[in-house]
């Protein structure tokens, strides 16, 4: 059996013993709904992660009018916002929760693991959303 044929046999074995789970395909299909056409994107400009896991992750995002600084520690996300007020919406691929912004600060607890992003609204009503980050 030549190498190409052998690899085909292996590919068939992988399809049988380690196929892409149906749930992974469903989640991938659903991901398109997370598009944010309406919002201005606040891009990640700074990230400071501790290499060894423990300790907070600090991140800074900027759009034209808004800055969002985050400190993520376990399932707690603390944020400092400039250029926006009202509430911050803490979004994950499966959930969204609004928390009040008080004097620029907000805090969200029990944030699920995985990706998270923050949506805020400027004083003139423009929605701004940060890039996704892994908590």
């Amino acid at each position, binding site marked *: 059996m030549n*190498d190409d044929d052998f*690899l085909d046999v292996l590919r068939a074995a992988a399809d*049988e013993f380690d196929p892409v789970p149906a749930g992974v395909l469903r989640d*991938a299909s659903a991901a398109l709904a997370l598009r944010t056409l309406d919002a201005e994107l606040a891009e990640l400009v700074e990230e400071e992660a501790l290499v060894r*896991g423990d300790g907070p992750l600090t991140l800074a995002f900027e759009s034209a009018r808004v800055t969002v600084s985050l400190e993520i520690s376990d399932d707690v996300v603390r944020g400092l916002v400039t250029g926006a007020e009202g509430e911050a919406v803490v979004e994950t691929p499966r959930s969204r929760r609004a928390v009040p912004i008080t004097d620029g600060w907000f805090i969200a607890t029990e944030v699920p693991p995985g990706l998270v992003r923050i949506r805020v609204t400027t004083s003139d009503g423009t929605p701004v959303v940060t890039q996704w980050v892994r908590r």
Partner: protein
Amino acid sequence: MDIPALVAAAARGDQSAWDALVRQFSGLLWSIARAYRLSDADAADAVQCTWIKLVEHLDRIAEPERLAGWLSTTARHECLQLLRRSGRLPEPAEEIADSPDPAPGVDHELLTRERDTALWRVFEELPDRCRRLLRVLMASPPPAYADVALALDMPVGSIGPIRQRCLGKLKALVGGNELLEERS
């Protein structure tokens, strides 16, 4: 539709175009996550994060004709980030034994099943470097070497020779071709 057209349509919100991309590349992304020995949950996480990053970048993909490369690179970053966060770099050797149980109830005749099961077990015991490369090459549909190179951060020119060496090693481990020659 070709890949750039699918990307453009998906960026306009065309779900069927997006689903075509998902069908085309999910096998590759899953294989990359498994190449890095991620668990079921972490592999699912890495793949989903890769798709979400693509959604975020849909209208900013510089070279949509090279989407497979973009996805491969992004998947590698996601996998390494997950491994780093859980303090699992480099990959622990004990996970080698952690191969999944064979899925039940497939319409294969018993003998073929036994051969495939044996082959899969032996494959899972390959040294990490070989197992990693072969697992990505086993993706359906078969990936281009350029994308494999991005997924594993290896020079593209090294893939052919290492592939040959690793398949040779696997054939030797399977032993005497008894399992394999009958398949050809």
